[in-house]
Each structure stands twice: as C-alpha cells, then as structure tokens.
C-alpha cells in the first residue's frame, strides 16, 4: 500500500452527510454517562466554591499559607492550567500553518480546552489574592486619582497576557467554528436553529466568505503562535524576574513553553481517548491521529527533558550557592518524593510513546497521558514550593503541604474545567465538520492522484513495450454523496 494510504488519518470515503449526522448526533441526547460526568464535575466545583467562600470570609490563612509560602498550590495550579491551554491553540495554529491535515478532526476540542483551561487558570490568581474585591486595580484604567498599576510587575504582564490570549484564542476558536455553525443552523431545529443562526453570523459559504475566512484564519494563527509563546514566557517571568533561587533562571521561558506544550499534548491525549470512547468517534479520531499526537508529544517531552536537564546542569555548574543548595534540597530534602515523581512521570514515562503497540492501545494511552499530566502538575509545584521553602533566608525555612481548603479549590478547578468542557461538547461540535470534509476531499484527491500516477507508470511501462499511446487525462472530479 502506498504511504498516503497507509498514513491516512481518516477514511476518505466517509459520506459528508454522515459526517454532519454523526457530529450533530454527538451533540444531542446525552447518554447517562454524560449526566454522571456532569454531576461529578458539579460536585467537584461545589467543593471548591464552598472552600473559596470560607477562604474569602476568613482569610488566606485558611489555605495554610504562611510567611515563606506566600504562594503555593494556587500558583502551581495556575501555571498548570495556563500550560494546558497551550496545546490547543498553539498546536492548532502551528499545524494549520504547516498544513498538517491530521489536525482537523481534533483541533476543535483542543482549542476549546485552551479556552476553558485559560478560564480556569485565570481564576487562580483571583482566588489567591488577599483582597480579591480589589482585583480591578490591576487593570490600567484611568483613575481620577492618577493611580496606575505598576507596569513593572510580572503580575500585570500576566493580566495583559492572559486577557490578550483569552480573547485571541476564543476568537480563533469562534472564527474557526463559523462554517460549522452554519451547518448546525441548517440541520437542527428549535432553539438550536435560532442559536446557531445567530452565531453563524449569516454564513453562506460563498467564495468571498471563504476567501476572507481563509486569510483571517491564517493571520490569527500567525499571531497566536508568538502570543502563546509570549504568554507562557510571561508566566515564567513571574518566577524568572524574581531574585529567588530556583526561580531566577534564564532558561525558564523556553522551559515553561515546552512544559506547557507537553502538558497540553498530554491533556489532548486524555480528552482524545475520552471523546473517542464516549462519543464513539472512532471514525474521526482514528488511531493514526493518535499516533501522530503521540509522536508529537514524545518530541516535546524530549525538548522539555532537555531543558530540564539544562536547568539542573546550569544550576550545578553556576556555583550560585543558593541555587545549588536548593537543587540538592529538592532532590534529597522533604520534597524529594514529589521531585522524583516529576522526574519519573515527565522524563521516563514518555518513552512508552516509542512503542507502536502502546500508541495504538487506548487504555494504556489514557493511563500514560494521565501520568504525564500528573508529572507536569508536580513539576509546577516543584517550581513554586521548594523555592519558597528553602530560599535565601534559612530562618524562614518551612515545608508546606497545604490545607483542605487549598486542596479542595485545586481539586474543584478540575470540576470547573470539566463542567465547561461538558457543556461545550453538547453546544458546539467537538469535531470540525467542514474541515473533516475538506480532509476527506483532499485525501481522496491525493489517493486518486497516486493511483493515477501508478496507472500512468504502468501504462508508460506497457506503452514502452507496446509502442506507446497516451491515455486521455481523466478529470476525476468529486463523487460526492
């Protein structure tokens, strides 16, 4: 079989009406598993809301924070969710620019993941504020007292970066969904028809719309790549711009970006397996796509591993005694177990992705991807906590494991994310219908061309023996439905 056929990520003979029908079906009549998942997410969210109400009322002390540990899991979780947001948009945009067709069936939920994990991440700096009711002071609004936020603070950069990123990636997601909204407008009834009718903004699919659409989408993709990288660099600046050992590290921006892509890919894998199973999307989310995702994840994992080791090496050879001691303390001190979990999950587990059998075995991939995510979560915690625990001032050394309140809020953030995602999959197509159609269309062309070439070669060979005779160039056209 030819390479194209072997690698094909989807069955090109899928009928287009079936694509419509399958995806629309996935959005309707939820099964019981859906309701159970929804209930679980709401329950988790409820834990967090209760904890937050308590914390709001009594103060940050209820989170167990203390003098050295002014930040803890809230910020680690914030970085985790920000990181997770990177896979969707960044991968979608990069793959779009390099015309990687296999992104098409999976980019939609990945982008949704981006938006929702950003929405989750954005909550954490608020939760962690001592006086959250004054949050808006971070915004650069014109005040009659001439007060401005401090633009030198990486936290203000965060506010700028996150709002830019959230609006841009939400726009990117939305723009990419417009043709699908039109499909839904045409093929649903009742409130949905009205709803999608508004959201599709009058999409008709004429050439002018497609032309501008393509240009816009490409432009947005071009901006989103540097934006995504800058966002995580800025998040890393929260640490790298400080003076603290273990934070003030030159390689932090690329390290954070790599870590973000890494955890994002792992999250995509998790959701891939889940959606494929729950929505019976086996025909769209094919094993070939999974394989490609796995390979990409592996490559990013290796980049991350490299940067991580570089960081250790630089610290080790740097002879900054505070940094060096901290590194040794991380590996041997009270946080050692967590540190080695990170090393194992982040650096060792990805090697399972080298094996094709495992890559095509969905339950293993679910386990692997969850392990990778766990590794990436503790990585963030290993960035935040040990530095605070063992910084310049030994008199204030302290080890902190958080209180129930803190754990509940961190736990609940997964519920919040899950809730948003579950609502999304029922309101919006989690597979891009028009792009799957494009994928089929192009794939079919490629296959036909290849077969044509083959025939041509055979004929040329036959012609060479039989004395030639050109065959008329057939116009394969589109068979359609």
């Amino acid at each position, binding site marked *: 079989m030819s390479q194209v056929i072997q690698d094909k990520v989807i069955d090109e003979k899928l009928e287009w009406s079936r694509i419509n029908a399958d995806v629309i079906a996935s959005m309707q009549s939820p099964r019981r598993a859906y309701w159970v998942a929804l209930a679980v997410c709401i329950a988790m969210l409820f834990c967090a809301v209760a904890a937050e109400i308590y914390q709001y009322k*009594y*103060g*940050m*002390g*209820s989170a*167990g*924070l*203390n*003098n*050295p*540990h*002014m*930040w803890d899991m809230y910020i680690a979780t914030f970085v985790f969710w920000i990181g997770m947001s990177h896979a969707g948009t960044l991968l979608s945009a990069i793959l779009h620019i390099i015309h990687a067709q296999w992104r098409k069936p999976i980019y939609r939920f990945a982008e949704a993941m981006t938006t929702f994990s950003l929405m989750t991440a954005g909550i954490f*700096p608020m939760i*962690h*504020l*001592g*006086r*959250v009711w*004054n*949050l808006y*002071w*971070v915004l650069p609004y014109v005040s009659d007292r001439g*007060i*401005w*936020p*401090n633009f*030198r*603070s*990486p*936290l*203000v950069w965060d*506010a700028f970066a996150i709002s830019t990123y959230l609006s841009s990636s939400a726009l990117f997601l939305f723009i990419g969904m417009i043709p699908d909204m039109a499909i839904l407008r045409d093929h649903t009834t009742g409130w949905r028809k009205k709803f999608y009718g508004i959201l599709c903004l009058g999409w008709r699919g004429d050439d002018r719309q497609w032309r501008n659409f393509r240009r816009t989408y490409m432009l947005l993709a071009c901006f989103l790549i540097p934006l995504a990288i800058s966002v995580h660099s800025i998040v890393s600046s*929260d640490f790298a*711009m*400080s*003076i*603290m050992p273990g934070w003030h590290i030159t390689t932090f921006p690329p390290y954070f970006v790599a870590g973000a892509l890494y955890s994002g890919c792992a999250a995509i894998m998790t959701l891939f397996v889940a959606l494929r199973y729950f929505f019976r999307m086996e025909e769209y989310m094919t094993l070939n796509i999974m394989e490609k995702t796995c390979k990409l994840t592996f490559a990013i994992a290796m980049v991350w591993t490299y940067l991580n080791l570089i960081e250790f090496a630089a610290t080790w050879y740097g002879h900054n005694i505070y940094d060096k001691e901290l590194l040794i303390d991380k590996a041997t001190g009270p946080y050692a177990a967590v540190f080695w979990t990170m090393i194992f999950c982040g650096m060792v587990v990805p090697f399972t992705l080298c094996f094709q059998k495992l890559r095509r075995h969905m339950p293993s991939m679910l386990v692997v991807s969850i392990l990778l995510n766990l590794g990436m979560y503790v990585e963030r915690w290993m960035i935040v906590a040990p530095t*605070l625990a063992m*910084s*310049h*001032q030994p*008199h*204030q050394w*302290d080890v*902190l494991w958080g209180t129930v309140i803190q754990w509940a809020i961190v736990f609940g953030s997964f519920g919040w994310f899950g809730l948003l995602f579950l609502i999304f999959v029922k309101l919006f197509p989690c597979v891009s219908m028009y792009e799957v159609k494009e994928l089929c269309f192009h794939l079919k062309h490629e296959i036909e061309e290849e077969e044509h070439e083959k025939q041509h070669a055979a004929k040329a060979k036959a012609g060479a023996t039989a004395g030639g005779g050109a065959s008329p160039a057939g116009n394969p056209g589109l068979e359609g439905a």
Partner: protein
Amino acid sequence: MSLKNILENFSYYRRDAEAGGHHEYEHRFAMAIDLDICTGCNACSTACYAENNLPVVGKERFEAGQAMHWLRVERYWDEIEGDYPEQGAKMIPMMCQQCGAATCEPVCPVAATYHTPDGLNAQVYNRCIGSRYCSNNCPFRVRYFNFWSYYEDSWPEPLRMQLNPDLSVRDKGVMEKCTFCIQRIRNAKDKSQREERPLVDGDIITACAQACPTDAIVFGDTMDPESRVSKAWAKHQIHRGPVTAKKQKADEEIRGYRVFDELNVDPSVMYLERVRDTEV
C-alpha cells in the same frame, strides 16, 4: 500634557539606581545595629508589637508560620563539631531592611509598595490587593501578610484600648512590614516644621532603638553627615547604593556589613559583626 512631559523628561525618567535614581531624596533613614552588644533579649520585638499594633496570632497560627513579628530576633547556632557551642549563640534582629533597590517594589502589581523620598520602602495598606509577590521576592523574608482578620482575636476588650491611633490595624489580605516607625518620623517632621527648624539627629527614634537595653540599634538619617548613623556607616566603610567595586570596603576586617549585600539590593540596615574573644 503627558506627551510633552515624556519627551522633555525622558532621560530623567530613565535614570536607575546605579545612576543615582530618579529620586531626589530628602532623607535616607537607616540603621546601624551592633551585633556585639545585641543580647537577643527581645525587647525591641516587644516594643515593636506595642508601637505598631501588631497582632498576637496565637499558638496554632504561629505553628502555621503566620506570626506577625515585624522585628524578629533570629537565633542561629554555630555549625560546630564539638560538644558545646562555646561561643554562645548568634542573635540578629531582623526587620525590613528598607532596601534602596528593593526587590519587593517592582513586582507589586498595583504599586502598593514604593520608595518614599525619605528612603523608606513604604507599604500602602489601602492599595494592597494581597498578591504577596513582594514577600516572595524578599530575600530577607521580612514581609508579613494578614492571613486572617486579627482584630477580634488578638485584641479582646479592653486590650484594644492599647492600640496606637497613629496607625491603622490591618485587616485580612494586606501585606505589612517594618516601617521604621513611620508614624514617629511623621510626628517628628511635623514637630520640626512647627518649630521651623530642620530635623536633627535624635528627633526620631524608632520603638526598637528606644527600647534596646544595650543601645545596640542606632537609627538616623544618612543624608545628614553629622548623624550618629552616618558616622557609624562611614566608620565602617559602608556606603549607600548598590555595591560596586569602587564602593567596597577598603579593609575587609572592618566590622560593618549589610546582609545579602551581594544581591545588590542596597539595604538600609548596617550590621556590625559579632565579636568573640577567640583566645580564651
């Protein structure tokens, strides 16, 4: 017009600490603490509690690391091989060092902590939103956060009658730290203004320096060359500003030093090394 303002003053606004900073300092308050006569008795810390309305957090919160001692007396043991610490223990009163190039200041998202023309690292409680970044970026770890609302717990009636009305009682969610008794500075300035005379050395004395039974803490203005603190700094060859080769001590054995001077933060507290008779 702010555009005009930018264009006219651009180079002025671009001056950093190494270039003398943009500040035109009126005073630069500083301390000199002699660790040879500091006994570690804790009078300074208690005086600070009394002067600055510091809450008593109680055992559980102290255990959780949420104590609010703006001025704490740290005690270190020698790292020794022998059976006994024959040179005693090491005591150091540690409070906000009012760094000239403070690392806490640029990271505050709302500019709640900033540098005053008095050379103080001021904390504006009302502006603070509690991001706690400043504390994270403080190498000395001398910023204290109101993790709880302490008013009810720490000052049951009639204990709250003792609260100093010259400064506020901070509610939950606000960062605070040693202010070099800014209310005393304010009062002294008002007084000197009323008396139409400049501030002189000794007009201002912080609560800790006042209480110190051995007078180990000297407080004053380093802009005034005649002040005791200026003389102490000069004598021990410690200069204001970030450390540069030119400004380093000529004699390494002179006792003056600033903690974490190598981080280039320009602390305003000079410590004098502890002395031990090694011949006994």
